[in-house]
């Protein structure tokens, strides 16, 4: 068997259909487990008391908002370089989930900021660059929707994705490069996490659940995109008739 087999939309359609239940179920189970840790097992924080619990949603959402963007940029680059149809479809399938996580990160951050910092919103480098990320997601989705010619739309959207990718390291390192109101990262590859182990565990379980959820919904979305684009072919017609 050759991996390239699955670069063909027709084959990938079948594979994605088989994978979706696995990803959905594991995402659901992990989310339940993660929320149980977050709300019942994790202790109260020494300075923020109960309000800190929003990190169990906020941090995984913020990670996913950046990570999904990089994956989109990756698929966009592959598509632009090799003219592979499926990679453009993957990029399009990921964008709405990325925008959703960016919105959740901003929203939960505001809910957290008011009681802890004393402000819903401040124009510091971390918050502003994350807001720009949301605008990028919305802009890319709008660009795709605005161009009727699918192939041209793919290229334009992916080009914009690649240009915007420069924002991701800026978001990530903003708390290091500049004085920001937002605190630095608790999780860092260079040092031990500055977090109690059970809190860290809750956050990581939630992050993995967010990953699996993202994979599941983007597979569902990419299957619809494949069907829409391949509707002239016999195999797609056969599926559409059955539905």
């Amino acid at each position, binding site marked *: 068997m050759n991996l390239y087999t699955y670069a063909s939309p027709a084959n990938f359609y079948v594979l994605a259909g088989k994978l979706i239940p696995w990803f959905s179920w594991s995402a659901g189970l992990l989310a339940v487990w993660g929320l149980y840790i977050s709300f019942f097992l994790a*202790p109260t924080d*020494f300075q923020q008391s109960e309000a800190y619990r929003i990190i169990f949603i906020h941090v995984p959402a913020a990670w996913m908002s950046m990570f999904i963007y990089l994956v989109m940029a990756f698929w966009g680059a592959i598509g*632009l370089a090799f003219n592979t149809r499926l990679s453009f479809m993957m990029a399009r399938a990921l964008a709405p989930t990325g925008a959703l996580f960016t919105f959740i990160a901003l929203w939960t951050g505001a809910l957290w900021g008011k009681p*802890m910092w004393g402000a819903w919103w*401040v124009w510091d480098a971390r918050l502003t660059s994350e807001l720009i990320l949301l605008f990028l997601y919305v802009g890319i989705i709008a660009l795709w929707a605005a161009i009727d010619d699918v192939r041209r739309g793919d290229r334009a959207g992916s080009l914009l994705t690649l240009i915007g990718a420069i924002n991701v390291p*800026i978001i990530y390192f903003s708390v290091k490069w500049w004085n920001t109101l937002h*605190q630095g990262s608790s999780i860092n590859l260079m040092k031990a996490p500055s977090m*109690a182990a059970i809190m860290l565990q809750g956050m990581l379980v939630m992050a993995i659940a967010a990953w699996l959820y993202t994979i599941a919904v983007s597979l569902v979305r990419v299957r619809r995109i494949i069907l829409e684009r391949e509707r002239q072919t016999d195999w797609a017609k056969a599926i559409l008739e059955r539905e």
Partner: protein
Amino acid sequence: MKSRHKKILVILLGLAGLGIAAALILNAFQSNLVFFFSPTQVAKGEAPTDRAFRIGGLVEVGSLKREANGLTSHFVVTDTAKSMPVVYTGILPDLFKEGKGVVAEGKLGKDGLFTATQVLAKHDENYMPPEAAHALEQAAKAQTTLVK
């Protein structure tokens, strides 16, 4: 060179150029991206004197005093090298504590007193249960007495 390789090269070069451009722009905006100035930067004269700006640092331990009206508070913001007095009228955020991070927005007076119009608490990236924080505190205390 195959056209596909050429395309990859163009994409990589484009991204590299974009990265350099972004780095230059960010470098040029460096001072505008700073959310707050530290007392040391203010002492060096890097902060604007004619308009409002933000200072950030730690609230010096033992410096917080409240006036009789209960709303106006005086405290000293320090970055351990330099420190500056701040006066603020209003409700302080819950996380505002001596020895913890703070960001205050306001104007610097001629007399060196910073009159804040907004005070924000800046918390750190450490999360632990209160018992663990207490244990760490005890350990730090024990260490200082041992050293003495």
